[in-house]
């Protein structure tokens, strides 16, 4: 009999939020780039703006719902991404061993990580802060720019553009590494579970300190 040991890494609430992020942020990034470079005609640009606003509203609603319905998960995420140690410096010194693995086909020893590695923590910080800035500034610029002083509108526009580009440029890296770590990809997109052996290799501290058996044959 073959026993496959699995850990629930991404609970349903997190996966639901991630699905909504996918369907809202991908059109937001695409239309954001179009709105920045303005390569299309007037009607196409108007359509891009309408899609941008609709996807932005969906993102804001999803973030608001996650804030209210999964506040404990949000706080856990904040705690994890803002918890640092010397291992994070060591991880960044070798970039998690990814360049060696991808370019040289060589596996090197990497400092033990928790649920998120140092690169994922950096990405998480950018998503958390950048996402909040994008939602708040986007809402203000879309709903009531006429009530804001001109300088404030310009400042919010600059912030929106900066964080929009930051997250848009992070997106291909996130997609590549997400698909590269195929078990984690399947967990986030499908069932939420990753093999214990995989978790033990990628997130040994998480497995060691935070994991307990749930039940058998579920």
């Amino acid at each position, binding site marked *: *009999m*073959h*026993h*496959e*040991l*699995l*850990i*629930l890494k991404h609970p349903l609430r997190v996966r639901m939020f991630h699905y909504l992020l996918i369907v809202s942020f991908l059109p937001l990034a695409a239309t954001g780039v179009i709105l920045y470079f303005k390569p299309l005609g007037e009607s196409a640009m108007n359509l891009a703006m309408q899609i941008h606003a609709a996807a932005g509203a969906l993102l804001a609603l999803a973030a608001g719902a996650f804030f209210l319905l999964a*506040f*404990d998960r*949000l*706080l*856990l995420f*904040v*705690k994890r991404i803002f918890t640092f140690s010397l291992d994070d410096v060591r991880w960044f010194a070798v970039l998690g061993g990814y360049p060696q693995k991808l370019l040289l086909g060589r596996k090197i020893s990497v400092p033990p990580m928790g649920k998120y590695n140092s690169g994922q923590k950096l990405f998480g910080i950018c998503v958390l802060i950048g996402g*909040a*800035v994008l939602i*708040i*500034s986007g809402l*203000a610029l879309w709903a*009531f720019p006429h*009530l*804001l*002083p001109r300088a*404030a509108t310009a400042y919010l526009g600059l912030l929106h553009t900066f964080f929009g580009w930051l997250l848009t440029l992070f997106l291909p890296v996130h997609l590549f590494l997400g698909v590269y770590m195929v078990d984690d990809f399947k967990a986030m997109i499908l069932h939420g*579970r990753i093999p*214990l052996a995989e978790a033990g290799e990628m997130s040994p501290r998480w497995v060691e300190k*935070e*994991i*307990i*058996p*749930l*039940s*058998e*044959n*579920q």
Partner: protein
Amino acid sequence: MEKQSLSYIENQPALSRREFITIGGIVVAFLALPVVWIRTIVASNNDYIRARTKGLYQDDARAAVRVSHANKSVARYYREFGGEPLGHLSHELLHTSYINRTKGLVS
């Protein structure tokens, strides 16, 4: 070969009550800051408009002559020189026509 799953899960709560209150407070405070900032600048923008409006009303209230037809100089102009309001002479003298003065500026 039969495939059997054994499930593991995160040991909840991974956050203590103290951490929950502290981190929750910081998150809510950081989200409230920009909202308060935007509300403040919108209010200050309206304050400026209200102050300007109040100043204009104040100027009006203090002004001895508030309308052109009550202006003694204007009345004297029509009485002694211009004839009647909207008359031919006044039209010729007081009405202006558009002249494009930007041509000389573009070079």
